[in-house]
């Protein structure tokens, strides 16, 4: 499996996407803090975090006695920059401009 495969596989699971959303909201959480947000055993959460770590989407960092989990956006950025960008950049920026214009009108 290559790096991109690992990222897509990791993102294919709703629990793992939820864990990333939690870290997006507030980065640098312990396993205990993450576990408290899920109806799942500690072991189950650890397994999901392991998949996210293998994909590079979560990076752990020791701080004192705590192991903190951080969201690492670089793998998704790489996919965006090297792959999706190539096909959609023009269309997306056109849509973003349209959205800006329409919303600008709405508030004017």
């Amino acid at each position, binding site marked *: 499996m290559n*790096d991109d495969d690992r990222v897509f596989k990791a993102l294919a699971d709703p629990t793992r996407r939820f864990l990333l959303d939690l870290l997006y909201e*507030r*980065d*640098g*959480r*312990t396993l205990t*803090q993450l576990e408290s947000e899920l109806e799942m055993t500690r072991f189950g959460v650890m397994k999901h975090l392991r998949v996210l770590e293998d994909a*590079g989407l979560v*990076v752990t*960092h020791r*701080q*004192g006695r*705590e192991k*903190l989990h*951080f969201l*690492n*956006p*670089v793998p*998704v*950025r*790489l996919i*965006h*920059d*090297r792959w999706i960008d190539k096909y959609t*950049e023009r269309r997306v*920026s056109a849509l*973003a*401009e349209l959205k*800006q214009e329409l919303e600008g009108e709405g508030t004017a």
Partner: protein
Amino acid sequence: MTTSTDTAVTTQVYRVYIKASPERIWQAITDPAWTARYGYGGTVDYDLRPGGKYIAFTSDEMRATGAPDVAIDGEVLEADPPRKLVQTWRMVMDPQMESEGFTKLTYDIAEGEGGVSKLTLTHELEGAPGLATLLSGGLEELGAGGGWAWVLSDLKTLLETGNGMDTEHALNQG
């Protein structure tokens, strides 16, 4: 909430695996001839010893739109080539960002298997919410670039293929 968790919330961690030696990655971070070729595209001036000055200059494109000469300043706290670089980091090209003061930036470079190195960037952004937004890519739609994830993605592309992405285009999109 504990104090350490409060700190964690304001710290950003970025990691990228690059098929290049730690020496080449170190050079790409500290050598102006390389820093001009990826990310925001400005040159740097590093005095690589504890207490040494760090200056990152704005790119020609940024100056063409009215930016001052200096983008970032700081001080080197630890330089252990090609493994570890710790420094302070303050954005001075914008008054609001400058008022957030100095932050602490750490580069860790570790050699892995098969010629692939692991670069981890840790940015401690306590008391700098504006910088945190900018560096996490939150101002990309405003033409401020995609922050560290974007810079590291571009650095990887440059070192692995010899070509950076089109910086000017990326900065102007949106």
